[in-house]
């Protein structure tokens, strides 16, 4: 495997309990890996280890062949973009959210991220905190994309959405993976997993 995420021998404990034990898997670029399993199985914990919001007890994680402990965490987190289950919209417009923390974001790059996330360019000027759940999910995707990620981690991306919106987001996820991103989707929704996944890892 040339690009993507490679996990070997990952063991993670939280609050004295071993959540993940000796886990190994690959999430190559261009594909969607679905993480399934019941609540408490460690799906969110695993995603948070992949962008170093949590630290494992043992094991190695590589992104494109490089140990994720090598780059500074802020840089790693732009390359391995995590979208939370209930995305928080930061104050300001959608455009402000998309440009958050970046030195500069061209209007073209901004519109491209919106389009890739299933939104049109007119969304840029909308106040971010007044969006519907489905719109938030898409803006969060677009906001992750403006970092120029190599991998995308989605935590229950459709859990808060109605079935129609969920189907649209699912097809957006597949389209994003085809843009040479390693996409990992944590979900307890088997329908979503079946619809988007090239491979499935059950925890």
């Amino acid at each position, binding site marked *: 495997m040339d690009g993507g995420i490679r996990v070997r021998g990952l063991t993670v404990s*939280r609050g004295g309990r071993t959540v993940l034990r000796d886990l190994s898997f690959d999430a190559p670029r261009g594909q969607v890996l679905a993480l399934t399993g019941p609540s*408490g199985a460690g*799906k969110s914990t695993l995603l948070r280890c992949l962008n170093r*919001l949590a630290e494992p007890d043992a094991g190695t994680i590589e992104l494109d062949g490089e140990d994720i402990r090598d780059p500074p965490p*802020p840089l790693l*987190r732009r390359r391995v973009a995590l979208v*939370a*289950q209930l995305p*928080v919209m930061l104050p300001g417009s959608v455009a402000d959210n998309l440009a958050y*923390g970046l030195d500069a974001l061209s209007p073209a790059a901004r519109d491209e991220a919106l389009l890739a996330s299933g939104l049109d360019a007119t969304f840029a000027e909308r106040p971010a905190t007044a969006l519907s759940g489905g719109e938030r999910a898409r803006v969060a995707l677009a906001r992750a994309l403006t970092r120029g990620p190599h991998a995308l981690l989605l935590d229950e991306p459709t859990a808060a959405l109605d079935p129609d919106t969920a189907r649209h987001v699912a097809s957006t996820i597949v389209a994003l993976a085809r843009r040479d991103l390693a996409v990992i989707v944590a979900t307890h929704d088997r329908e979503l997993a079946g619809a988007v996944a090239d491979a499935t890892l059950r925890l």
Partner: protein
Amino acid sequence: MSAAVLQVACAVAFVAGAALLAHRLQLGLSREIVIAAVRAIVQLTAVGALIALVFEIDALALAFVAVMVVTATLTSGGRIKGVPEARRRAGAAIGAPALGAAAILIAVGAFEPTPREVIPVAGILTGGAMIATTLTGRRLLEGLHDDADAIETRLALGDRLRTALAPTVRTAIRTGVVPVIDQTRNVGLVTLPGTFVGLVLGGASPAEAARVQLTVLLTLVAVELAAATVIAELIVRTRVAPGERLTEEDQRTGPS
């Protein structure tokens, strides 16, 4: 009934009313109000009896200032439970700015290094620092909890931890210093603070009283901002984990 008895009786009636109201509203504060009132009565009576002695003996005056700072530290430290070594951190946030500013005022000759001047000034500065420390510390603890998802979102977008925490920290510091800013803004209009009243009652000219009050009040703004900033920093340090992330205890514990 003498004026003295009437005065005390009225004051007790007011605080009893407050305790009753707190009880009715189920604030869980009525017991605390009663204890605070009893303490105030005992402490002020004791100070009234002791102060003449304290004003005469320098060593006793220093001990008195130390008691002020320790008491303020225990009070604030008890209000920010959940912070490791809360008292030590509160003590630093209160003691350093309050005593530092008092030392500067005395060093430049703004106040005489006599118990009669040092004790009231140190007392006012310590009390202000205590309030700012408590308010900032509590607001910050609430903020770290309430903003956990927003902080994590900012981290995930590539912020350094300090940057991700900055909005929460700023809100907490603002909360801590708003009272002293309002007090300063409205002095003479809404409040006639203790120093001024005390000096006038003690026979000083109103102009002199105003000058002393102004010195204390404006110093207090700096002291309280310093106290708020120090306690915020000392609390943030307990939550910083290696690798630009929060310590585990404060991370989101949602479904995994």
